[in-house]
């Protein structure tokens, strides 16, 4: 592990101005992504700015009914918060399906949004990887890509965004609040993560010097909600395919529906095509499966991950079925 300078900050403007002055800096919150990658020599910050003392640890309901979550709220706290459990159960389930208890206790909301891909080639500095070192090539394209994406890929990168929490947030609908040297701005959660395209090294819409201060969840959508995560073993593994579903019914018909996917796409994925296919239709297994098919119309399979198309569809159909059952209950 390389040595780095560590500095603690007490106020948000301090954190933000620090970043403006220096290059090669990184924030550290829970450290569960950052320190891993520093040890592997994948991230090489010269200076690490500890943001854990910033006053970003609250969860509060705004006047308009939205829920504002501080970037330092831990994954455990967020998953167990009574408002989240009541109004955003899909998010709570998503969080609790991730990592392990110990990691969730350390992991922060902002850090989770910013976690890096688990592509093994990305995590090994000896291997070519366009995301880590632009222009070196993508080892996964011809290599083993069993864990890689089938949606949103490019010829330069096919890595998945690994987060469960973000999938729950995309389904629930959310806004990120960013604080930078030039002030505060808001970005729709869905627009924050970027597709790899020609520049897989650009992963998100965070400008140099900016800090995520909050995530604001849309007003509760009600309905029945469910997060389903499919993987080889029963716990402690990133999703091979996951689905966050929110279904509202009008009689036997689906009046509103949100579908988001994890494990199959290069970013937390909103499956709008699935939503459109199902909205206004009777809530039947056949229609759930049709919606699932629609979500993967543009999917591209690589040498080892074709099974993810089937698995992803299964995740959608089952999550919709179970969310619908909850909507009826």
């Amino acid at each position, binding site marked *: *592990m390389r040595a780095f300078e560590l500095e603690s900050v007490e106020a948000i403007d301090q954190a933000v101005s620090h970043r403006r002055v220096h290059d090669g800096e990184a924030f550290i919150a829970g450290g569960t992504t950052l320190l891993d990658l520093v040890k592997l020599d994948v991230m090489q910050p010269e200076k690490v700015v500890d943001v854990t003392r910033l006053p970003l640890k609250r969860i509060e309901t705004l006047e308009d009914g939205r829920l504002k979550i501080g970037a330092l709220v831990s994954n455990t706290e967020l998953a167990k918060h009574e408002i989240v459990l009541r109004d955003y159960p899909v998010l709570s389930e998503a969080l609790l399906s991730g990592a392990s208890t110990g990691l969730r206790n350390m992991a922060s909301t902002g850090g989770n949004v910013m976690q890096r891909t688990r592509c093994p080639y990305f995590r090994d500095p000896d291997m070519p990887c366009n995301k880590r070192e632009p222009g070196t090539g993508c080892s996964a394209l011809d290599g*083993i890509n*069993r864990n890689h994406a089938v949606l949103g890929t490019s010829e330069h990168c096919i890595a998945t965004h690994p987060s469960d929490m973000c999938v729950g947030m995309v389904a629930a609908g959310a806004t990120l609040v960013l604080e930078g040297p030039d002030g505060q701005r808001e970005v729709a959660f869905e627009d924050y993560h970027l597709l790899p395209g020609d520049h897989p090294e650009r992963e998100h819409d965070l400008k140099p010097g900016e800090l995520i201060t909050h995530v604001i969840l849309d007003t509760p959508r009600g309905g029945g909600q469910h997060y389903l995560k499919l993987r*080889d073993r029963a*716990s402690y593994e990133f999703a091979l395919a996951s689905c966050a579903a929110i279904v509202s019914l009008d009689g036997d018909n689906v009046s509103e529906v949100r579908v988001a996917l994890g494990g199959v796409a290069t970013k937390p994925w909103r499956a709008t095509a699935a939503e459109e296919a199902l909205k206004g239709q009777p809530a039947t297994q056949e229609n759930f499966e049709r919606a699932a098919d629609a979500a993967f119309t543009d999917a591209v399979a690589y040498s080892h991950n*074709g*099974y993810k198309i089937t698995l992803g569809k299964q995740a959608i159909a089952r999550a919709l079925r179970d969310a619908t059952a909850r909507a009826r209950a």
Partner: protein
Amino acid sequence: MTTDTGKTREYNLSAEKPRIDGTLKLTGGADYAADRNLPNQTYGYPVTSTITSGKLVSLELDEALAMPGVLDIFHHDNFDQLSRSPNSFADENLTSEPRLPFEDNEIHYQGQYIALVVADTLNHARAAAMKVKANYERSDEFLTDIKALDRGEGELPGEEQPGDASSIGDADSAFESASVKLDHRYSIAQENHSVMEMHASVAQWENDMLTIYESSQGVVFQRNALSKIFGIPPEKVTVISHFIGSGFGSKLFMWPHAIMTAVAARRLGRPVKTVLSRTQEYLATGYRPTSLQRVRLGADDSGKLLSIHHDGCNESSPAGKHDDTVSGATPKMYDCGGNAAVTNRLVTVNKCPPCPMRAPGEASGNFALETAMDELAVKLEMDPLALRKKNFAAADPTSDLPWSSNHLKECWDDAASRFGWDKRNPTPGAMQDGDEIIGYGMATQSWEAMRQHCSARFGFRADGSLLVACGTQDIGTGTYTIVAQTASELTGIPIEMVDVRLGDSQLPSGPLSGGSMATSTVLPAVSAAFDEALSQLKSLATAEGGVFENADPDTIEIQSGKLVQGDRSVEITQLLADNQLGLIDGEASAQPGDEQNQYSFRSFGAVFVEVRWDPGISRLRVARVVSTIDIGRAINPMTARNQVEGGIVMGIGMGMFEQAEFDQNGYPYNNNLADYILPVNADMPKVEVDLLDYPDYRHNAFGARGVGEIGLTGVAAAISNAVYNATGKRIRDMPISIEKLLSA
């Protein structure tokens, strides 16, 4: 020193005892190798090859040497001249990788050591290791996937090993004329040991004496090998391994990191500690080799086996040959009409040498045979358990020797009834529960019962405590505990008063902790040493002026820490005090004898598995495992059951998850614990283990045959058979991953 084959008596010892070292382990008091810190210590960190095959052309070291804290970097051009160990199992100096570190500039595999950086701290050493640049001449000729060589029919690939081939009767003709025939291929993917305690060496030289603290399943083997490699007498090498956080075979025979560390310590004149990373462990300390197998069964219409052919093929390495002989045990499993033929082949792959991994060979071979038996049952429309019963081998088919003790039939029946096998519907997919389809499967379990030569020391101390010492190890299985239990029961002195010393090559020579033979090997030596020490006590007591002066020693017994003769008794502590002695001890050894030519020794068991398959989301889970095993006498049923349970967990790994993957460039894709999928707690089904209790006194005076490995055998086959019962899909390649289930 006396030698006792242990058959003169039959001890009746068995008790449920928690591990005596449990508290030490829970409180951090157990000194594992990497816990050792010596004054003036330094830290080694290996640099490893990032190519799969070729030559190391040069190393660029300047930047690394200039890094903070770096003391030196060892590599091919500046390494000491050493000799290879003769690598003899019989002479107890076998190593896992005969090639010495940095011996030449050939690169045989990714992860091969190309340098060792030594610095004042671990972080400094690791940071500098990342700065070493290596220039290679890459070779495009390499192999990491033996499956790619298999044509899918006929002979398996690789070089036949004549020593592995064996046959009885005329299997070819019997197969030809059989009315029911089956011919299938099976495979098991490479599995990593994934030991909890990382491999570690801490080496120190004092004058010309080497002491090395190592996580080792064989301190005597490592001592002997180091003595040959450094060309110094064995007395000048001490290997210490007080506690081991599992080895599963990967710590039986020394690996090169220990040699590098010892050389660095000698050159720097300071102790050096090297702890391998998980990735280094995965790439440079062995694995269960990928195996390809072909099984042919011939039977008549009633299900009577007429022939068994079992051909195996496993990976070996240019850096060290390893033969897993997966088919070796097959002819002993069933009465096959006296016709069996087995072979094994090796294919050299560009990986480090494979090595034994829990139930080596047999766990892999058993999977193929027990799956084939299930396929035969399906073909015959016969119950898989009934098929096995019909072919029970009443004696060892390979030698016609009687079994020393064999209660397999009871294992089958006991496990079947506890499992509820009679409720099984043989039609695939017929048992449903909501979204899930239920499948039942079973397999026979088996492992050879071995015993080796062993010495031990047994002492009575003036403070009333006992000293028992043996140069074997406790790899977490409970050897400390059963030795203490035995000493306590032999003397009537409480277990808390027993001081057991293991894991030190200076102690009387003990066996490897492997092959499930520690119990059967060590306890007879302990009792022989006890006899020796007791006879010395008796001599004191009967000597002139002694408490039982002139009494016949045979009339003296030991009870609750006293010597008793008729209605007279004396505390042993008193006896020692009277003679102004601090310790009375005896050393003795024990070894197997003529019984080895009279009986065949083997343990058997039965395992039944329930799987649940949710086809709507392609989710397979093991829901329940029931196993009944006959291991003779369990000296400590609590730790013994725990061994079987652990074996079952590993079997679930083999059947469902574990698979080291290498890409088209030979890159080890899942070289870490996050990407190499092992079962976790949430994958644990309900596991119910029952051990029968039929002491096998033909094997040794304690009646114990050992239990470390048998629990793993059969599990993968039972899972795959249950998957067939649930899905109608026959998966012959382990592990049963989601994509295999989807494409079958």
